[in-house]
């Protein structure tokens, strides 16, 4: 069994608990062992650097320091956490003066980090470590006929990522296809959902969410699948607000990749957290569950 | 007899003198063994500097010279010449690099001066042991090989041929003409490209001194300046050039079509075809991938209808070898394929085309007969031209392709001339620096072309229109402009096989992938390999005037070499002492230049002076120590090392 240090991120303990449940279930089924990083702390996401730039590196770096001791790749299902850790790693590499400061700060907490942790997004692990063929071979409940719009969001594929293209990403498409489902064309698949601004500037964010829902819907999608907890929250929980504000009537269930995968792999729906979605996926997935 | 050495320390202005204490080094040099005189001067390579050396050689009877200055790459040949003019053999000169390897790599004055002293000491000890060597001359084959038959190759070939020398002009495509042939009108004068190019092409064809080999490729090069041998693979056309009259009936009758490469895939050609009507030579080739005879053994329509009986399906590939004195590489550029820029919609959305594709649309002999139309067949009402596609972009090519601003404006003019369409030019900076270029820009402005200073990130399709979403940076507002056609002004990039060509001709490439010139300002067409030149867009993106100028520049250099008639052979080669040679043959296998032969009768190795480059591999490898590298003898090298370490105390050895 391939082992990884697992960093769920704050959302997976709260609004995206379904993601955590389904990731654990699917990993077990695919032969991956996820060992949750002990006593991990919030990564601070993209907003911490507006408050303090040094803390914004050091606070997530605590997690990397803890993970380094385990010697495993650190895998996270959250795109924001993934980007934050990537930023820490690359800044420590590019700016030696910054690294000196960070070393000092970590030392004050009795920690040290040598830049050795390889941070992976869950999608990368599924695509490149497990592989679409391996996944397809384990599918017992192919999702034939299910029209899926795979939503990447921003931070998964931008500014750049080794396993996919920022403008025309394909990784989620391929993973969804390996489950037997049908991927619909989806021009807004990598457009921002505005998650970081949805509380403080809902009017702005709702406009962005509308665009994504509209794009999926007009291309015949029956559901949207995503690999980021913040995206799921935006598209799912705020769908009602979008409908009210813009007079639309979207009822698009937004599920996590791991939930869809779990279904195709024949896992128990209860274990996959389908009951947590605000827009219920029950009707759409009825013929597959 | 003790050597009499003169040592000259160059200030090189502030380059050396600001970091190295030249006075101290001079004083140090004066105190070295066998040094008769040590001086320092601001610019040793200047005329007064050179004269200082010459005068000292004469007045002080110097027989060896050391110059501590820049890299030998820069001025070793300069000072060697100075020595010889004053009567001292050039191999009794040694250069110490106290600039690139000393003053330019540190700010620490103490360390730099210390190192300079060590380098000078090394050079002095070495030069004391150097031997005069005879410089041999080899004849120059007064023929040239020009690789690539675009405007650059054509110009170079004509210039050399006009001087009465033979030129082999090798072109990969079935016809010469290159990319210039694909253009419609050329900026800034709006000359028709074919009209100015075809007379040159005809001249090439009929010139008695030019041997034109089209549909051919150079596959091997050996030798050295003045004496190259090139192997050229002549691909079979399956049409006998000597019989073909160029009547074109074969193409007419051929029932099989393919996308025309010349028309950028926008039009069709036949399986037996000439790429364009004015092809030189006007002899078709058969595309064996599309020709049904080659695929299935049937048809043969061309053969049936050819009155001159010129079709020859039995033709085979031929490899010919030519001997030339100089090679000019004029292989041109490739047009950047914008497919990877997903957000521009090239090949995804209708009516998004590249610059070269637009040239073909505009051109009267192109796929639409010169009508600027959309894929639906109607004329566009508005056209957007996006600059800098693939250029000035860290994601693709960082450099500026130089000609796109001008050709973009040319497109605007051509569109306004023949349609009623609105034209929008989306640019970041406008580069119109050549002769008549700014005036052309003024003209285009006067024609009502709309310039929007913006680099649009995306082209989307909406209700049958192409929408450019951009920020008008000068007005400071977001714009959405709907057009019918988008022209992407694509970059000029190195040819896809530039790496292989570089290897073939021993060329280096700069970071942008184009072939590297010897010096960007002072030797823009020469390369680090003597006798091989690179001209035109193969060296970097440029317009036609510059290309032609470079071609003539290289031709002039080649003609100078031919006029001299001989080249000097570097004498620092290796020599086998056949008495010591044990006949093991290790050196023969190791020589990268195949310069060593094993003499079977005497069972000893012999080195060809002319092929030997003096690399030293055989010298190091010979187990019997029978090979000496002239000018790099063991004694000389050890003396140099001793000079470097002269003031280093040996370490205490622990017992």
């Amino acid at each position: 069994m391939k082992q990884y240090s697992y960093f769920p991120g704050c959302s997976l303990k709260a609004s995206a608990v379904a993601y955590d449940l389904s990731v654990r279930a699917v990993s077990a089924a695919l032969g991956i062992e996820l060992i949750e990083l002990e006593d991990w702390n919030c990564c601070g996401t993209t907003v911490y650097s507006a408050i303090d730039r040094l803390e914004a590196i050091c606070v997530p770096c605590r997690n990397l320091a803890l993970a380094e001791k385990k010697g495993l790749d650190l895998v996270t299902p959250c795109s924001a956490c993934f980007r934050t850790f990537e930023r820490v790693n690359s800044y420590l590499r590019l700016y030696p003066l910054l690294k000196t400061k960070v070393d000092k700060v970590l030392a004050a907490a009795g920690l040290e980090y040598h830049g050795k942790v390889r941070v992976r997004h869950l999608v990368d692990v599924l695509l490149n470590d497990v592989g679409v063929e391996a996944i397809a071979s384990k599918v017992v409940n192919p999702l034939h006929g299910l029209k899926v719009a795979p939503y990447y969001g921003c931070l998964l594929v931008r500014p750049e990522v080794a396993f996919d293209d920022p403008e025309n990403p394909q990784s989620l498409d391929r993973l969804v296809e390996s489950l037997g489902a049908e991927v619909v064309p989806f021009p807004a698949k990598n457009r921002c959902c505005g998650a970081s601004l949805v509380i403080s500037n809902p009017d702005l964010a709702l406009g962005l969410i509308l665009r994504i829902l509209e794009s999926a819907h007009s291309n015949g999608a029956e559901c949207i699948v995503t690999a980021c907890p913040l995206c799921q929250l935006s598209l799912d929980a705020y769908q009602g607000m979008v409908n009210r504000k813009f007079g639309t009537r979207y009822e698009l269930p937004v599920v996590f990749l791991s939930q869809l995968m779990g279904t195709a792999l024949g896992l128990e729906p209860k274990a996959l957290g389908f009951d947590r979605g605000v827009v219920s996926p029950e009707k759409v997935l009825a013929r597959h569950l | 007899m003790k050597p009499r050495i003169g040592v000259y320390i160059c200030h090189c202005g502030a380059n050396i003198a600001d970091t190295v204490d030249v006075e101290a080094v001079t004083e140090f040099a004066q105190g070295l063994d066998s040094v008769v005189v040590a001086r320092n001067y601001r610019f040793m390579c200047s005329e007064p500097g050179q004269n200082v050396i010459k005068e000292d050689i004469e007045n002080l009877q110097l027989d060896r010279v050391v110059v501590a200055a820049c890299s030998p790459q820069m001025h070793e040949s300069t000072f060697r010449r100075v020595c010889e003019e004053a009567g001292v053999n050039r191999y009794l000169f040694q250069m110490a690099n106290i600039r690139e390897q000393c003053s330019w790599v540190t700010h620490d004055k103490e360390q730099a001066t210390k190192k300079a002293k060590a380098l000078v000491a090394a050079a002095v000890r070495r030069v004391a042991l150097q031997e005069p060597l005879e410089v041999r001359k080899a004849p120059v084959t007064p023929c040239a090989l020009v690789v690539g038959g675009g405007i650059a190759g054509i110009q170079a070939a004509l210039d050399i041929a006009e001087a009465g020398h033979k030129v082999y002009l090798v072109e990969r495509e079935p016809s010469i003409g290159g990319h210039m042939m694909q253009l419609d009108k050329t900026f800034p004068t709006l000359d028709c490209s074919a009209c100015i190019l075809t007379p040159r092409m005809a001249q090439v064809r009929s010139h008695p001194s030019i041997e034109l080999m089209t549909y051919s490729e150079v596959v091997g090069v050996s030798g050295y300046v003045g004496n190259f041998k090139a192997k050229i693979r002549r691909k079979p056309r399956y049409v006998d050039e000597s019989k073909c009259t160029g009547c074109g009936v074969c193409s007419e009758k051929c029932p099989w079509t393919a996308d025309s490469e010349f028309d950028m895939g926008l039009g069709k050609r036949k399986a037996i075809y000439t790429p364009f009507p004015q092809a030189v030579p006007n002899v078709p080739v058969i595309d064996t991938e599309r020709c049904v005879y080659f695929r299935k053994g049937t048809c043969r329509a061309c053969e049936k209808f050819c009155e001159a009986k010129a079709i020859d399906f039995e033709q085979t590939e031929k490899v010919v070898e030519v001997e030339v004195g100089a090679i000019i590489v004029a292989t041109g550029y490739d047009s950047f394929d914008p497919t990877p820029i997903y957000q521009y919609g090239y090949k995804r959305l209708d009516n998004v085309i590249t610059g070269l594709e637009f040239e073909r649309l505009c051109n009267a002999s192109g796929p639409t007969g010169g009508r600027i139309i959309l894929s639906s067949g109607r004329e566009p009402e508005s056209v957007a031209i996006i600059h800098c596609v693939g250029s000035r972009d860290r994601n693709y090519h960082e450099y500026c392709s130089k000609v796109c601003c001008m050709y973009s404006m040319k497109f605007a003019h051509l569109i306004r001339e023949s349609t009623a369409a609105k034209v929008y030019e989306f640019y970041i900076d406008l580069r119109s620096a050549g002769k008549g270029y700014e005036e052309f820009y003024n003209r285009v402005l006067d024609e009502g072309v709309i310039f929007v200073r913006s680099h649009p990130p995306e082209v989307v399709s909406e209700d049958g229109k192409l929408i450019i979403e951009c920020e008008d940076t000068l007005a400071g507002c977001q714009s959405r402009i709907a057009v019918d056609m988008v022209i992407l002004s694509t970059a000029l990039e190195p040819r896809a096989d530039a790496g292989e060509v570089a290897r073939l001709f021993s060329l280096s490439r700069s970071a942008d992938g184009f072939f590297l010139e010897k010096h960007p300002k002072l030797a823009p067409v020469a390369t680090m390999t003597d006798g091989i030149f690179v001209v035109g867009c193969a060296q970097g993106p440029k317009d036609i005037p510059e290309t032609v100028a470079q071609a003539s520049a290289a031709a002039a250099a080649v003609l100078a070499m031919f006029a001299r008639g001989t080249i000097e052979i570097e004498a620092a080669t290796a020599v086998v002492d056949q008495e010591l040679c044990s006949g093991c043959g290790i050196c023969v296998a190791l020589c990268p230049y195949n310069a060593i032969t094993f003499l079977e009768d005497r069972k000893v190795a012999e080195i060809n002076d002319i092929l030997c480059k003096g690399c030293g591999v055989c010298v190091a490898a010979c187990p019997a120590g029978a090979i000496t590298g002239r000018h790099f003898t063991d004694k000389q090298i050890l003396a140099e090392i001793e000079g470097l370490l002269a003031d280093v105390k040996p370490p205490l050895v622990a017992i």
Partner: protein
Amino acid sequence: MLAAGEASHGGQFEREWLSRALYVAGPVGEQVDAMAEMAATKDQTTFDRGMPMSKNGQQVAVDGYGFAEEIASEPGGECIRWCVQCGTCSASCPNVLWMEHSPRKIIALVRAGKRQDVLSSNSMWCCATCHLCTARCPKGIDVPELMHVLEWIATREGLASGKISTPAMHRTLADAVRRQGRMHELGLMARFFLRTNPLAALKLIPVGLKLLLRRRLPFRAEKIKGTDQLRAIVKEAQTLGGGK
């Protein structure tokens, strides 16, 4: 007035000509003082290159090389030097129409030394860090990073835009992380709305309820064990000048 190249004589002079040259909205004295202090501590030769002139009440851009360099001296901020003002970023930005100044314009204003305009604008607070600009920028500039640097400076100097409540959101989140090591969504929202505008919370009550019902908004805040480590980190970071 100073002749070009002549050194200035300390903060008093800067204060005088800054107050003449700048269009300042809000409490003038404080902000001018802050900038004068910055000016006085900057390298005199670079700052004195510009000659501020006031003609008919119109102000001419102060030579702002200092401000751009301030950004460029931050790790991740050096890319501001590479901008050629092509506008790719602005046109890619999904939120550009909400911004007072587009991303490209912000960079231009920074370079022109319009510190006040930039730091008090809402532009960077509208950035969702989606990086569409970064992916397309021909010079490879990380625009959201520049936005974050500006946000940080604006926060530090108390200029964080009062027109938008995003700064308060960021602050709330940072406080929570510093204290508990985890982000507790319910607590976050509560604190945020209390800090800014409790009535705005009403709009989100339907969403909140739905999430609560589906057990996606736990009441209890989780706290990590290593809070003392985090405290030490935050303390040491702030001692070191907080990334300055």
